[in-house]
């Protein structure tokens, strides 16, 4: 069974995004970049499925600039077998990403695609569902547990108010939520080994996929700032202020 794991290079989740003064976007120059944390969880899940013998091959794919090779090397160091970079300097919208992935899936024929539920830059949480739609595949989003068996995946999903379990026929799209697993740190020997694993690079333009943006970014601004408040000395003080000053009790 082959697992495809799309991964995205994004701003490191510990770094605070800063809006550019000219309001054209977020300043990513000289900012630490990492693999999207939900994609890390997806890679971990795929590697665990392989270690358990449920999967035979894990292929990581990324769409991004030349530096996205580092992100793919991280996936390889975690245990992916090989990687594909669709190289572009364009910032693709979720629908375009889904169309590019559809093309790659046509070439690779994976049995299951496991990907992060959202990327922490655009915060759309849309690509997995869009990919499932255009492929006509079933989807199991926001997964907190995944079991593979012959031709099926049983997926526990995080839903409003609790958990839902679905069984989907393969091939299918699974998107990873926070509690699916805790991703491993790649060991130094594995980082060294990853450098020798195959990483195939294709130019986005060579795929012939329509990736034209549908949305024009008019401006990117800072959210209104909250003025810092006051410190209170005691709990009694706090209750008094909430009652009389803020009027919320």
């Amino acid at each position, binding site marked *: 069974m082959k697992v495809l794991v799309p991964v995205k290079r994004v701003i490191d989740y510990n770094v605070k*995004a800063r809006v550019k003064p000219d309001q054209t976007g977020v300043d990513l120059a000289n900012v630490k970049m990492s693999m999207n944390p939900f994609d890390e969880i997806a890679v971990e899940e795929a590697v665990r499925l392989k270690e358990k013998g449920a999967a035979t091959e894990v292929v990581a794919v990324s769409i991004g600039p030349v530096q996205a090779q580092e992100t793919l090397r991280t996936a390889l160091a975690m245990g992916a077998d090989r990687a594909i970079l669709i190289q572009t300097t364009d910032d693709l919208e979720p*629908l375009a990403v889904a169309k590019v992935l559809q093309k790659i899936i046509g070439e690779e024929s994976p049995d299951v695609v496991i990907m992060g539920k959202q990327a922490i830059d655009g915060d759309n*949480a849309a690509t997995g569902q869009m990919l499932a739609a255009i492929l006509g595949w079933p989807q199991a989003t926001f997964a907190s547990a995944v079991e593979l068996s012959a031709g099926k995946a049983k997926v526990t999903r995080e839903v409003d108010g609790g958990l839902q379990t679905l069984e989907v026929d393969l091939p299918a799209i699974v998107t990873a939520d926070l509690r699916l697993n805790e991703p491993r740190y790649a060991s130094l020997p594995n980082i060294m080994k990853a450098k020798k694993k195959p990483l195939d690079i294709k130019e986005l333009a060579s795929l012939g996929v329509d990736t034209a943006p*549908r949305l024009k970014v008019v401006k990117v601004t800072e959210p209104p700032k909250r003025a810092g408040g006051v410190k209170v000395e005691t709990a009694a003080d*706090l209750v008094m*202020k909430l009652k009389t000053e803020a009027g919320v009790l």
Partner: protein
Amino acid sequence: MAVLVIADHDNASLKEDTAKTVTAALKLSSDVDVLVAGQGAKAAADAAAKITGVRKVLLAESAELGQGLAEAFEALVVPLAANYDAILTPSTSQGRNVSPRIAAKLDVAQISDVIEVVDANTFVRPIYAGNALETVQSSDAKKVITVRPTAFKPAGDGGSAKVETIAAPAAPAKTHFVGQQLVKSERPELTAAKIVVSGGRAMGSAEEFQKVIEPLADKLGAAVGASRAAVDAGYAPNDYQVGQTGKVVAPELYIAIGISGAIQHLAGMKDSKVIVAINKDADAPIFQVADYGLVADYKTAVPELMDALSKAGK
């Protein structure tokens, strides 16, 4: 132009997020229909018909819609889209599950988590955990939008729209519902509560979280929330999670206990009207957004707070 709002409900009752999404829809058009798709959801449809400004309610029922299967929603909504210029869904986990599937099937972008409707083509949405706001202009003929409910006031309840039953198309054969475990709670729902009490990693264990956070919440009639760190560590269930990757809340009063205030947590609560932070670290970033900060160990501060509330008649 006409707009379709996909209702948020649990089959038994309609969620307030629907009325909030109607408010966003009314900024686009005065012809707003609401789709209630579920099973045994007549009462939810009747409630939707009472929302002020709704033209018509469509009720579609099947087992698969009742289970919230995205494939069933796609089969139902994509043909309906011919009658509408925009399809709005509240960005709950169910909305986020189904809406992108509909957008892709219509070959249009999804405009996610909209917090402001500027005009019929222009919308504001948060990106990077709310550290930036993006204004986007759509060139698609049809708009598929998810709406952040906390950014809109609920429409009133003075409507009297007709409920029209429509057929639910055949179910998807590749997705099978196995079961669900819903948490039953007497407390108000996190996203609709007037007061939210949240605990962080400082709690140290699930037992401590229950012992400290829950009694305080119950005293205040509040919902319980948690930081991602607390959820990650297993102190609280995932549906308590407030933040970029969990729920976005904007209550009248948000009380953060033992929460440092990571960027991703602030993204989920900084629009609350009044924020209280209790943390023993005076330098914790949570104090930068808190209206009232109490620098103290929660172990002493929370019992004192309980006492003070009792004395104040709570």
